[in-house]
């Protein structure tokens, strides 16, 4: 599943996901009818609207294959949020099944496919922002493991690392002051350690943090972890 953000803004992240999975020997499908995971409506408290979107999703992703998502947030919506939204609905079992098939892509690579080390190099100091919706999953650990295994890569720890970046979906527009201040604090803590690159497993956090930093006139270079892995393969001549 590409996610609505990658469908609208970050096509290269979806592309990198496909390229990496194919490199690892997976056969990738992209159901054309897909849209979004319904999280914007769910988080806004409009659960009937969220259910409408999720029912469409269940329909689009029929079958038994794993559903791979380049976003911890959308993945968590499918294996956790959706169950809340459907707790009193008769079609809960179908939603549950979709949740059980869903993986955040880095977690899938490490825990699902058993890949523990990545080929190639990335001679960069990276700050890895562990997005909140990776909590309770293996994704953050998986990302650190793979990124850290790249030749020449260094992952820098920074202050208040586990704090939220302040995006929070509709929270970013309904609480604009708090959201921006949380993001600026995150940027300050990140800049302190002077990374070459800010990496995360969710484009939403990166969109927010880059957006803030650009507005400040001091843009932070950002990249999704799956892009970093893909780029390393390309540089190594393993991928074209």
């Amino acid at each position, binding site marked *: 599943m590409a996610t609505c953000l990658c*469908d609208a803004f970050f096509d290269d992240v979806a592309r990198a996901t496909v390229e990496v999975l194919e490199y690892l020997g997976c056969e990738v499908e992209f159901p054309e009818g897909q849209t*979004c995971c319904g999280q914007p409506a769910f988080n806004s*408290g409009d659960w009937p*609207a969220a259910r409408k979107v999720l029912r469409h999703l269940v329909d689009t992703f029929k079958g038994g294959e794993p559903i791979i998502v380049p976003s911890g947030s959308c993945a968590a919506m499918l294996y956790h949020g959706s169950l*809340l939204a459907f707790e009193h609905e008769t079609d809960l079992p179908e939603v549950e099944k979709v949740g059980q098939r869903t993986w955040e892509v880095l977690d899938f690579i490490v825990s699902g496919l058993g890949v523990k080390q990545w080929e190639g190099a990335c001679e960069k100091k990276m700050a890895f922002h562990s997005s909140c919706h990776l909590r309770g999953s293996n994704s953050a650990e998986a990302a650190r493991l793979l990124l850290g295994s790249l030749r020449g890569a260094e992952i820098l720890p920074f202050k208040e690392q586990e704090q939220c970046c302040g995006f*929070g*979906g509709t929270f*970013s527009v309904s609480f604009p002051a708090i959201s*921006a201040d949380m993001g600026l604090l995150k940027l300050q803590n990140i800049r302190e350690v002077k990374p070459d690159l800010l990496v995360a497993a969710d484009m939403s956090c990166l969109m927010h943090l880059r957006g803030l930093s650009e507005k400040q006139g001091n843009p932070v270079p950002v990249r999704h972890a799956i892009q970093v892995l893909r780029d390393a393969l390309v540089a190594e001549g393993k991928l074209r």
Partner: protein
Amino acid sequence: MNTEIPSHGQPIDRFAAAISGEVYESVHSSSAIKSDKRQALLAGDYPNPKHLREIAGQIKQHTLESLDKYLPQAVESLERNGVRVHFAANGEEARQIIGSLLAARGAKKVVKSKSMATEEIHLNDYLAANGVDCIETDLGEFIVQIDGDHPSHIVTPIIHKNRRQIAKSFEKHGLGAYNDDPETITRRARKFMRDKYMSADAGITGANFVVAETGRLVLVTNEGNSRFSLAAPKLHIALVGIEKLVPSDRDLSVFLNLLVRSATGQQFTAYTEFISGPHASGQPSGPEEMHVVFLDNGRSDILAGDCREILRCIRCGACLNICPVYRQASGHAYRSVYPGPIGAVLSPLLAGEKFPSLADLPKASSLCGACNDACPVNIPIPDLLLRLRDKGKREHAPLASRGVPPMGGFAGLASQPALWKGALLAGHVMNYFPVEWVPVPPLSKWTAQRTLPEFRGGEFRKWWKQRRQR
């Protein structure tokens, strides 16, 4: 407390934008330090702190779900210990019960140790209006009291003040010339308090736990003020929420270990008191008469609803300390006795019919889940916030939807692939249009402080098609 609804924007966001740098600094640094200490201590002391939190959550959940068994058992045990037990359905009843107990003994001077339940029923105002001189003996609460302020945190009520501000209020209230040395402040407060303790007619406390099996009441403090509050007075009244029960003494080991580490990042507080009844013969001192007032005040309604997990709360404040929104907005932004993540769930629920006036609180969260990870009784706070958002929407509480883009149109798009693809193409106008000038929310709320990324709708789909054709 001010629960008025400001005219536009989310109240908490406006509050956060308006707080002073000084308040922000006090709240942020103190809560960050406490969070770090908590995490380090738990990780150092237990092989698997998460497991311990889960056990604690299960014990509490079990107690709540069997309250019909444990509450009568607690009453029996307390009475066996010589304690008189009362039930208050709401704040009004609780105030009256306490008022008449005081009147019956002609008690005019009261020392009170920190209790959120008494805050919840605004006991101090009631007592003052009835001519009772009631002094808060916890240093933080005392400062709040002399300043006519409100606590902004459930464990550290003056987290929003720095020592310079405290020194100033001491000076203003005749407690000595300006001196912002914390030791001096504490010494002066102690001296002032000592006389109050000795001359008090009654001591009022809350309770951290009440053990159903033994009727033991547990109080945890660092200043020893609850112990002093019960030294001289002949009457002890404890106001206790019905959710404070634990089944047996054995369970206390789990809760005391977690509570103190989670609250203050200490292994143990300086004073932990186990009170098993009034003054027994042979004891050198202690109240002759002891009453426990069990407070419902909306709790049984919460227990019957789908957010009942919130009643597991042991008021440790860890969720406040870790919460990025609380750190930005501070406690007063929540306009209720319980701020932060616990307050964002509990306050609107306790408000009962007035739910709509606090329906914005559950929205004041990026749903980051840090509170859930911190909570010693493993309350799924983000899930409860989401349930309350759903409730707010269903009940059309105006504050629940303010500033949030409507989702009906979105759902229409996102459930019809043809429309969705159309929108992905149409969106490209954004790239040729100065979107930053569009003064319409939600776009303007985004672009005021952030740039928008380049719109590339449909690009991935194009790439995908070409790749398949090869």
